[in-house]
């Protein structure tokens, strides 16, 4: 039923809080170990509760209104979707598909998906091409399609606008329904990222279309139906969402009776909640103190794994001094990235290392280390770069040019002890070079997005989180016309190159092109990649078995059907 998996690309979806960037690629070899080996024997039944920071605002994760990582985790148990990512960052079709999506024509570029024959919603309606077509119709960018899509709940007026979190891929294709269980998309240009399409759980079209609010708000109170291993049992707003087994599910039957997503907004309390066994699994932000604390808890398993999230130091090109390449080079020479890794990341794992590529992360086969020039801190080279640009060291030990001191404001979103420590290390290193760094952090209600978009920074530390879309990720961060290009870096050579990469079908050639572009970025230095960091610390009560981390957006929930209580568990 389900086709074999290929080492290909990290599947991911758009996240409410993620700033999405380059991720993974690979060859076509099938490799073992993706699913973490054999599953351990477990008892039938039981429940597990997870501490979730944010509460969903509705269930249609495909709308910009509801789009949220926490919701993705819930709905991947409830609604069908096309591909899922495995811990080794390969992808495989979910049980909703009858096999791999296939390219059936290269001109025009046409891809065919086959839905599993036995796939049904729990009201006995088959999961069909209509469900996929509804997603395509709602997300193809033709927001006002001339016909009402729903009735406004308050006014009773027709609603025509469609709220879709991402039109990528749908807006450059046409949908063709072959039969109830088969459909195709024909693309205007070769579309190499087609496996990411329909990658977010998709709603039941037959119910949603008739629901007040339709696509936009018709799923605000309930998913209406399930075609996944679990279905909604209860949503106690502000408290928890409980999923229970879906008896109509055709795929592997889950062991646990219920999965509870408890809303506990303060992540600093999650460890205590786990310690008191009020939740059994948590995934807080990685902090060394917290990790150490979790490791000492008896009866708790904890681990931190490096994935596609990478920290970086951004430059604002609107700052006239930072717009000078030699100044950016001086900063790159002046910081000691290996020391930052040793101080901040090694406590999580000995596998931590410096990141020298912006398109691929170290655990991908396509990764090439291009930042060797700036591998070691070199004060002499840093000062030479400044002097070459006409800077002269002042009496206060800080370089200046034309009366303007090399003094920059660095910003991180608080609270984030890791980044706050990082900026202090950078501040100390650059002081040794003769560059003044002033720490000027911000906190909620400001966000990384708001500060980035406003350009209210000189130096900025945050992380991008990878998706499979290394091309669109690169476009998003570094293209001159992208809103997410916070530093306003602009190089027509890069703009042309990334467009070229977007049309390369061969994965190897595409990876070569992306690596080539990364070398260009090391010359231009729009930012400095620092290191990968764990997306979170996975910790759970060790009476449960078969819980395996997954650093993609699929998360550790990727194999929740295998989870269960060990036979020896009380």
């Amino acid at each position, binding site marked *: 039923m389900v086709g074999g998996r290929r080492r290909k690309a990290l599947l991911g979806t758009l996240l409410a809080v993620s700033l999405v960037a380059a991720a993974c690629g690979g060859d076509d070899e099938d490799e073992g170990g993706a699913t973490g080996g054999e599953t351990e024997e477990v008892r039938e039944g039981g429940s597990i509760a997870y501490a979730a920071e944010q509460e969903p605002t509705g269930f249609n994760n495909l709308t*910009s209104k509801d789009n949220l990582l926490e919701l993705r985790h819930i709905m991947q148990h409830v609604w069908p979707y096309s591909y899922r990512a495995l811990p080794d960052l390969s992808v495989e079709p979910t049980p909703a598909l009858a096999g791999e999506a296939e390219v059936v024509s290269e001109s025009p570029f046409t891809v065919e998906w086959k839905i599993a024959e036995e796939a049904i919603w729990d009201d006995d309606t088959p999961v069909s091409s209509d469900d996929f077509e509804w997603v395509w119709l709602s997300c193809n960018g033709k*927001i006002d399609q001339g016909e009402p899509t729903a009735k406004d709940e308050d006014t009773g007026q027709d609603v025509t606008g469609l*709220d879709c979190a991402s039109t990528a891929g749908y807006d450059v294709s046409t949908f063709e329904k072959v039969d109830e269980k088969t459909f195709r998309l024909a693309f205007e240009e070769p579309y190499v990222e087609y496996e990411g399409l329909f990658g977010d759980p998709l709603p039941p079209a037959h119910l949603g279309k008739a629901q007040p609010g339709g696509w936009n708000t018709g799923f605000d109170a309930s998913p209406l139906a399930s075609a996944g291993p679990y279905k909604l049992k209860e949503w106690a707003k502000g408290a*928890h969402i409980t999923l229970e087994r879906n008896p109509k599910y055709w795929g592997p039957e889950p062991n646990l009776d219920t999965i509870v997503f*408890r809303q506990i907004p303060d992540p600093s309390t999650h460890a205590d909640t786990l310690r008191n066994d009020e939740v059994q699994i948590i995934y807080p932000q990685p902090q060394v103190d917290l990790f150490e604390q979790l490791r000492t808890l008896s009866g708790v398993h904890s681990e931190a794994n490096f994935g596609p999230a990478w920290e970086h130091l951004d430059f604002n090109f609107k700052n006239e001094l930072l717009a000078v390449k030699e100044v950016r080079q001086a900063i790159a020479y002046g910081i000691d990235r290996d020391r930052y890794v040793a101080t901040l990341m090694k406590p999580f794992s000995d596998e931590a290392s410096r990141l020298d590529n912006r398109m691929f992360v170290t655990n991908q086969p396509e990764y090439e280390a291009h930042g060797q020039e700036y591998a070691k801190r070199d004060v002499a080279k840093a000062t030479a770069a400044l002097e070459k640009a006409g800077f002269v060291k002042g009496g206060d030990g800080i370089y200046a040019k034309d009366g303007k001191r090399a003094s920059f404001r660095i910003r991180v979103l608080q609270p984030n002890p890791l980044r706050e420590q990082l900026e202090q290390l950078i501040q100390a290193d650059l002081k040794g070079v003769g560059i003044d760094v002033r720490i000027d952090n911000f906190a909620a209600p400001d*966000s990384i*997005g708001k500060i980035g978009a406003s350009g209210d920074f000189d130096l900025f530390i945050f992380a991008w989180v990878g998706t499979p879309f290394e091309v*669109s990720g690169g476009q998003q961060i570094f293209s001159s016309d992208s809103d997410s290009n916070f530093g306003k870096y602009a190089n027509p050579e890069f703009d042309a190159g990334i467009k070229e990469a977007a049309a390369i079908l061969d994965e190897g050639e595409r990876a070569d092109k992306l690596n080539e572009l990364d070398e260009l970025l090391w010359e231009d230095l729009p930012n400095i990649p620092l290191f990968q960091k764990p997306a979170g610390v996975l910790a759970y009560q060790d009476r449960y078995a078969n819980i395996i981390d997954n650093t993609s957006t699929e998360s550790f929930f990727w194999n929740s059907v295998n989870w269960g209580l060990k036979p020896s568990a009380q």
Partner: protein
Amino acid sequence: MLAFTLRRLAVSIPVVIASSFIVFVLVATAGGDPLADLRLRPGVTEEVIELRRQQLNLDKPVLERYGIWVKDVVRGDLGRSFTNEEVRPLLFRRLGVTLRLVVFATLVSVLLAMVIGVVAAVKQYSRFDYAATFLAFVFFSMPVFWLAAVLRDVGIRVNRRLGERVFFVAGEQTPNLAGGFFTVWADRIGHLILPSLTLVLIQMAAWSRFQRASMLEVLNADYIRTARAKGVSSARVLFRHGLRNALIPVVTVVAIDFGLVLGGAVITETVFGWAGMGRLLVDALGVGDVNVVQAWLLVTAMMVVVFNLVADLLYGFLDPRTRRG
């Protein structure tokens, strides 16, 4: 008394209207762009952003938005949040959570503060007085988040020692709890103890000092000396003449504090994962959700007005001279 009550309520109306306008304008203009994060997500088109702007009325001038809000509120409609949730049920749900937390905590705090304050005043400079003073200053000066974290840790340690979970540190109840009436209530009380204790220790510390100071002042008054000289029993002097008068300033403070705390015990709610009024306000401010902030303001302002009124009425009850005045 009725005229007094109505007059006080009437005076409050312009205050609530003025504050609602000021807060609306502040939140709507100073909160930045509520769609800023949306703009940064790849794949979100300009059309979708424009649609959201229209849905949230962000395309309209602030004054027009305020006008829409007022018109709806007059009809009893508090509007919808940015996440399309009806604000009224959301607000009442959150208020219910906060009430559960603060009513119990306030009752216990008042009772303990009265007892401690009175005993400390009657036995001034005794060991009890020194101990009560010391503890009051400790808890009064202790950051709430720290006290909450300590209590949480102690609760968990006790649970581990007992081998049974008596104290809970997250939320108001255990999800999907099976069992009868007593199981459910034991669970609810188990969830209530630690957050309530946090509030009790902080509130009691302040109020017991008020009670002590007020009681001391009264006990040194001429009429108390006169009562004693007339041979009135100590208990009667203490409770009928002393405590009754000493309660007047304490009642005022407690009533105002209670009105304010209904706006949410933000830190306690956050640390113990209670989705109450405080969390509601913080979350709404974070995204500039003006309808929710306004609804919160309305309820909180009304609570402050009502409990100020309650304080005035109690004042009249405790001291009949104020009624005649």
